[in-house]
């Protein structure tokens, strides 16, 4: 009797174990089948999904491509310069989202002129808001630590006060892009996300000396959109600046020559590096704006190979005078 019970228990135990073992084996088999990878890992360089920046350029209007306004007060000169192009409403429509990309590369105070002037940025924000923009974002991917850059330059404070939202770059904001016909911008990470929803894009840059490229102005300003180990592009600085100007097609660029950094650029660091030139440029043509801007540094457009390269690629013209820039002088 006892023996029989023992046998029965043993049999039940055996059966139970068989079932458990069977389920475990089946699970191991199923997991293996589900995760089976016949090819092994690739090089890791497979084509990722690429993004492309929108074309924000506005319809050309003869005589309203570029304007040059002389005067000491940035708020007044920039307003006038944009007016001469047909007013802010040509670029910003009611209810739109506007992205503004000032040069905020360095964590240095505004008075040193290494970055876009905060008053100027604030005035452009205000113009956009007055034109009915629903949302104005101000952003850059600086060289120095981003939060410090926006804080120390005063751009965060001024832009927020004028009604803009300041966006700091985060890893998730970057996407890969390839420039059609480009040699350098191939599957390269760019600062993309904050611009994806923008209906208009305005670039704001000061005129600065730059030892490697000659001058840093509106075209060089787009360097801030590059992610990844972007410093390698200094090996071919003219090509990368030209390609950036092909990659980004802004609604409008503003080149601030109120105070020009003549030496020690692009960082500056001393008031002695600056010269008053009291000039503000607004332009739909970056090449034209920079071709004029470099004259404030005592350079000719031919001194900057990236201007000719961009012109050859059809981005704009180095012969800014052919555009008959509208001009004005304010006291």
């Amino acid at each position, binding site marked *: 009797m006892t023996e029989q019970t023992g046998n029965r228990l043993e049999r039940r135990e055996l059966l139970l174990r068989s079932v458990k073992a069977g389920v475990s084996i089946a699970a191991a088999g199923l997991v293996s089948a589900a995760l089976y990878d016949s090819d092994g890992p690739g090089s890791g360089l497979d084509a990722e999904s690429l993004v492309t920046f929108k074309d924000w350029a506005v319809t050309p209007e003869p005589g309203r491509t570029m304007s040059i306004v002389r005067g000491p007060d940035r708020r007044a000169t920039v307003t006038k310069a944009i007016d001469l192009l047909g007013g802010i409403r040509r670029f910003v429509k009611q209810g739109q989202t506007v992205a503004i990309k000032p040069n905020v590369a360095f*964590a240095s105070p505004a008075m040193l002129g290494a970055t876009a002037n905060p008053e100027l940025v604030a005035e452009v924000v205000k113009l956009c808001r007055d034109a009915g923009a629903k949302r104005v974002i101000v952003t850059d991917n600086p*060289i120095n*630590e*981003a939060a410090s850059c926006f804080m120390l330059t005063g751009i965060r404070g001024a832009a927020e006060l004028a009604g803009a939202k300041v966006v700091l770059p985060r890893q998730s904001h970057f996407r890969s892009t390839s420039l059609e016909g480009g040699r350098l911008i191939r599957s390269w990470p760019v600062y993309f996300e904050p611009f994806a929803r923008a209906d208009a894009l305005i670039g704001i840059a000061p005129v600065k000396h730059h030892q*490697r490229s000659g001058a840093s102005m509106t075209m060089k300003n787009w360097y801030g959109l590059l992610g990844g180990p972007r*410093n390698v592009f200094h090996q071919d600085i003219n090509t990368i600046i030209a390609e950036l100007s092909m990659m980004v097609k802004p609604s409008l660029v503003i080149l601030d020559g109120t105070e020009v950094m003549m030496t020690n650029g692009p960082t500056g660091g001393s008031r002695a590096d600056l010269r008053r030139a009291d000039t503000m440029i607004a332009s739909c043509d970056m090449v034209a704006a920079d071709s004029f801007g470099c004259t404030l540094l005592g350079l000719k457009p031919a001194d900057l190979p990236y201007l000719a390269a961009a012109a050859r690629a059809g981005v704009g013209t180095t012969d800014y005078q052919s555009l008959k820039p509208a001009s004005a002088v304010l006291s």
Partner: protein
Amino acid sequence: MKIVQARQISQVFFFAMFVWFSIVSSLGEKLWQIRGWPVKWFLHLDPLAAIGTVLSTHTLYRPLLWALVTIVLTIVFGRFFCGWACPFGSVHHFVGYLGRHDKSAARKIQLNAYRKAQALKYIILAVLLGMAAFPSVAATLQVGLLDPIPLVTRSFDLLLVPLLDRSAGIASATERFYEGAWLVLAVFGTAVLLNLLIPRFYCRFICPLGALFAILGRFAFWRIGKRSGDCINCRACERSCEGGCEPAGRIRMSECVLCFNCLDDCGHEVIGYQRRKSATGEVTGPDVSRRGFVLSLAGGVFAAPSLRLASRLGGNRGHTIIRPPGALGEGEFLKRCVKCGKCMRICPTNVIQPGGIEGGLENIWTPVLNNRIGSSGCQLNCTACGQVCPTSAVRPITLDEKLGRGAFADDGPIRIGTAFLDKNRCLPWAMDKPCIVCEENCPVSPKAIYTQELFNMVRGGVVTVKELAGDSIVVEQNLPPGKFAGGDYYLAAAEHRSKIIDNTGSSVEIVTGGNLRANLVPGAIIAIQVRLQRPFVDIEKCIGCGVCEHECPVGGKKAIRVSAVGETRSPDRRLLLER
């Protein structure tokens, strides 16, 4: 309200405040950023930091006067800080509770029994204080290795906040990286998990601050003890005893952390908080002989110079040990730094890193700049690190002092090191590639990095003119199409040189004008050159900020690197002949 509830509220309050101060230790003006929050208050309340620096420097740095508050309260009440305020103690308290709450009463009593090894903390305290008290330049403040306040501060600031904030990214200026965070984790994790073995393991066996409180609290006016002998010896009072001080027998005053659990657990109201000694007697002082304590102190005194046998303050100084701007000379610095990590937390660029063992024991967790980590070296217009240093190991300097302006114009800027070019790695020097990112980013004016122009022939750059067609020059050789476009390449023959605009596989287009074109004939041999700007460092201008090193595109081992040479903080590390 029962007194244990008051204690719990106090613990939660102080712990929350501590965590808040850790979160807000980030540059910015928002409510959750640094603003005016007194983020170093806990470190100032810490008598071990105060007494340690008093022993090593023979001065009491002003804000450390706060420690006097803790000291006076401890003299009056005993180890209240451990049970009521210490954020690290509260962590141990909570984890210890989790570890024991489902165990039997007998097991709990066993866990909370006094152990002879609890005397270890007095030895640790004596050794650490002995090192600080070494009567010469070799005095070294190493209390920060185990002092719970710096320990828990760096654990939260360098480990937990960065980890928990990884996806949100709101508690730091940039995503945080800390070299050697594993060691911070190992110490913190071990200390916390040991609570599952024995509750409040760290507090009972290791904590040098607790040991100090035990010594200070021996004359406490009120103390835990039995009111009368009417005790049935049920030992309920030892079930949740945090200190392991055996209130059922002769209570060990020095181990009692004033948790008041015994008072709460005693069903017979025998235990009280009173001026009298316990009815069954008490052991007042620490369970370590005077001789043992003095011997340990002497051990510490000998340990201090033995650390200096490595000559790290002399010829064997670590050239990679770059201290933040405002740091005292190395000897004085090591007398003050408590290794709390606040400077590493606040640094907006994340360049300040916890030092590792490679710089010797004294270097562990002290601030060291690593220009390869973080967003951009030591930022020119920033003095945040000195503002949060609790002991002024890194002085709270002004921007004028850092940059050598205004009243400091005669002293010149603070230099934290000097950049050295590695010409074997630098692109324009070693590879004939244009670059000068270092020059572009050098933040001082005039720049400490300057360039010299040079035209060098490219590899395979000798070509023969086949024919001339306008500005286009057809050559006999095959060229890589487009390779010499970009504005950095030139065609040269004899003393004439013209910039190349573009090239095909067989021809080169040069800029219009110039003398080269006029002097060329078919059959002429010409050179393709690259225009280089080679960087040089001007050591009279370089402040060692490391932006160049950070931005240098040559990854891994950079082509320009900052060494801790020419630091203004130590005259013996001077490199310049004149300031």
